[in-house]
């Protein structure tokens, strides 16, 4: 059997697609929760409370310093054993990706608001705008414009990083690919290139529209 025939042999392609769905599902859930928690945390980071600020900073750095794979191992093999909690690989993945995504989103929100010059606030106030009016008409539109492309960038990074979760036993698209290649090792030794090629295209199909969207959002207005 030729390598490319493996792709559509049996229900291989359907299996790849359902693997892709696992990837997308875990990414979507994680990104969704991260956005909500990240906005809350980011807003807290722009506030005045120094204790909250330091706490958020420590959290953010801790998440960033440790590789995502290590977090996955800690969560799936460590925490479950320690607490006796029976976490599925998928649940552990969502938790780890949410912890990571929340930290990154918060930092993006913080910097989006922080990058707005102080005189934008002052000239708004000097025009008699109330604080709420100032945020609605002046600050938020500018902050969101800074924020959108970065959030989408983060989302694509998260989608790509889900490739790691096969290592804690989640059968996502990459793992399915590996299974298909292994099963056809003798009949089609050159299947790997084809299978991984298709997976490459699948990742591309998911991430590229996001990149396009991000580019469109940055280009808008002058």
């Amino acid at each position, binding site marked *: 059997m030729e390598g490319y025939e493996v792709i559509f042999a049996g229900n291989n392609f359907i299996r790849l697609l359902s693997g892709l769905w696992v990837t997308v599902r875990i990414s979507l859930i994680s990104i969704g929760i991260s956005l909500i928690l990240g906005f809350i945390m980011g807003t807290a980071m722009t506030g005045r409370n120094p204790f909250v600020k330091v706490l958020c900073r420590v959290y953010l750095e801790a998440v960033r310093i440790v590789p995502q794979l290590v977090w996955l191992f800690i969560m799936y093999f460590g925490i479950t054993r320690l607490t006796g909690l029976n976490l599925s690989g998928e649940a552990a993945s969502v938790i780890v990706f949410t912890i990571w995504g929340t930290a990154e989103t918060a930092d993006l929100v913080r910097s989006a608001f922080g990058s707005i*010059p102080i*005189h*934008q606030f*002052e*000239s*708004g*106030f*000097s*025009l*008699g*705008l*109330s604080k709420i*009016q100032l945020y609605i*008409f*002046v600050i938020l*539109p*500018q902050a969101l*414009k800074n924020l959108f492309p970065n959030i989408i960038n983060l989302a694509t990074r998260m989608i790509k990083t889900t490739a790691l979760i096969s290592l804690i036993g989640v059968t996502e698209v990459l793992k399915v690919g590996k299974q298909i290649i292994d099963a056809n090792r003798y009949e089609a030794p050159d299947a790997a290139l084809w299978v991984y090629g298709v997976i490459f295209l699948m990742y591309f199909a998911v991430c590229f529209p996001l990149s396009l969207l991000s580019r469109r959002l940055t280009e808008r*207005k*002058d």
Partner: protein
Amino acid sequence: MSDNVIEIRHLKKAFGDNVIFSDLSLSVQKGETVVVIGPSGCGKSTLLRCLNGLEPIQDGTIYLNGKPIEFGGKSLVKIRQRIGMVFQNYDLFPNMTVLQNIILSPVKVQKRNRSEAAEEALQLLEKVGLRDKADSYPAQLSGGQKQRAAIVRSLIIHPDIILLDEITAALDPEMVHEVLKVVLELAKNGTTMLIVTHEMSFARAAADRIIFLDGGGIAEEGKPDDFFRSPKTERAKRFLSTFTYTE
């Protein structure tokens, strides 16, 4: 007394231990253009910022049309509609067109009719030579154009006084003139203004009165011709001499 738009009595302002003014009193009459000059760090900008509550004051009272201003709370929003301000930095909102910038406060704060506000905005833009830029975004304007638009934005709320805080300090030299021409026109038409500037020839041309700030208070005050021709204090002489270059 009753003609005073702004009256400052015994103003005290300090940043921590750094006292900017210990006891400053100053008034601006209706229709008067008062220009504040002085060495950098003397508190010129701080003075303007105290007037509309951007800087909290430690002591003293500021009267607007004879009524003491209460800083903090809702009344400050009302006060700020009576006091227009233009800053050194380009302070137009980049997410809105020039016209949207100008009518934001009239429509959202003063609840004026949108088309009526837009009409007045266009008339004012015409006066400062920016009628054709109404639908441009700030990023498409030169520095001088931005500042002229910012002046219009403060004019349209019909304030009792306009504060101009070094509005040409960040501009390229060739754009300074077009902005100051607009301000000079306002001064001639009897707009009440309190201006902080480094442009001495402009100060002389536009001012009804010069205030020279130095050493934590008003070091000298007078008619522009008297002040620039024969300053009375040693400090003012020294300050003015830094603007002339002689071999």
